[in-house]
């Protein structure tokens, strides 16, 4: 009997440990529920989002305050990005959003720069000032064209 209950305990611990591992992968790593508070949804429109993808982090001064929840194309064929942010944030209405890259080849994320107005952005508002992703190829193309390295003109 002693050995049987010991085995039950071992199996119980094994099943519990396995389920905990699945739960850890789902919630913590898989982001089943975003660990932060969330609740403030803002919209930002960009001409070019580069490689930005859903679940990309949103940061203020480098501190993560939320994430991208959806990217769609609006009626004017611009990229409409939905951000889910910490509800306790007080962002002025002239806050700007820009798409940055971490490192040279790293993932893209959105960084917000709060402005100086007294009025605050409310849930569902749009961020009017946006700066698109830096497209390296486009930049080089422009540079070649402007400085006439191509030598065609």
């Amino acid at each position, binding site marked *: 009997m002693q050995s049987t209950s010991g085995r039950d305990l071992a*199996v119980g611990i094994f099943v519990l440990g396995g*389920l905990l591992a*699945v739960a850890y992968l789902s919630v913590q*790593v*898989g982001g089943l529920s975003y660990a932060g508070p969330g609740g403030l949804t803002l919209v930002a429109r960009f001409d070019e989002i580069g490689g930005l993808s859903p679940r990309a982090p949103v940061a203020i001064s480098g501190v993560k305050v939320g994430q991208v929840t959806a990217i769609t194309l609006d009626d004017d064929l611009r990229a409409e990005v939905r951000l889910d942010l910490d509800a306790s944030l007080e962002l002025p209405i002239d806050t700007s959003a820009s798409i940055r890259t*971490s490192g040279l080849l*790293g993932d893209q994320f959105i960084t917000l720069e709060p402005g100086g107005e007294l009025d605050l952005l409310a849930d569902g508002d749009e961020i009017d000032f946006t700066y698109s992703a830096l497209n390296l190829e486009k930049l080089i193309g422009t540079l070649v064209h402007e400085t006439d390295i191509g030598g065609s003109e």
Partner: protein
Amino acid sequence: MTGAVARLGARSVDWVAGLGHMTRFAGSVVAAALRPPLRGRTLVREIYDVGVRSLALILGSGFVVGMVLGLQAYNTLARFGAEQSLGAVVGLSLIRELGPVLTGLLVTGRAGSATAAGIGAMVTTGQLDGLRMMSISPIHFVVYPKALALLIAMPLLSALFIVVGVFGGYVVVVELLGLDPGSYLSSLENAVDFRDDVLASVLKGVVFGLLAGLISTYRGYTSEPTAEGVSRSTTSTVVVASVCILISNYFITALWGV
């Protein structure tokens, strides 16, 4: 000449008949699973045999695999100055492929072979016939708990393998190579998606568990009642189940990944 053609034909017919026999066997195992009693005590003993006893193997392997992944990914990524993606590379490799597949192969070798040998030994000593004589279905009494135990244990072992592997990668990347612990974990958490990665990983564990469970019990159940027959069915369990796991892995990835 005609003899060769006839042999080829006979072999093909045998193979197809074997496939049909195995499908019917799988059907009767599923039917047994749906029929009470649950056989909880036997099930616990079987989960102990295939799950708890495989723990040391799985945890040890997972840790070392995570460590080597961290080292390999570092060597490649450092050339591009992309060390901050190390967590994503290690985590995604483990969750999407290495965790479920290596666990499937290891558990097949460790527990699948034991299952086939165990049932084969019962066939050899006439124990299954003894059960039939007492009008107890050997499928319900012996086969179904063993198959279900593998089905339950496989995804759990795979998840443990992954978590330990991520930790092994962390040890190498952060402790030995001295990279930033925050960037390892945050790149991992940003890269992994619940549905595409974690759910697919659990699904793979379940399918591999089902394959290992059905193939090992089938091979044991149909093994010839001799010592040689049992050893042959044990070997073919490991070979066939491993190949099936690798093939089905491709299809799950292709169908789920989109």
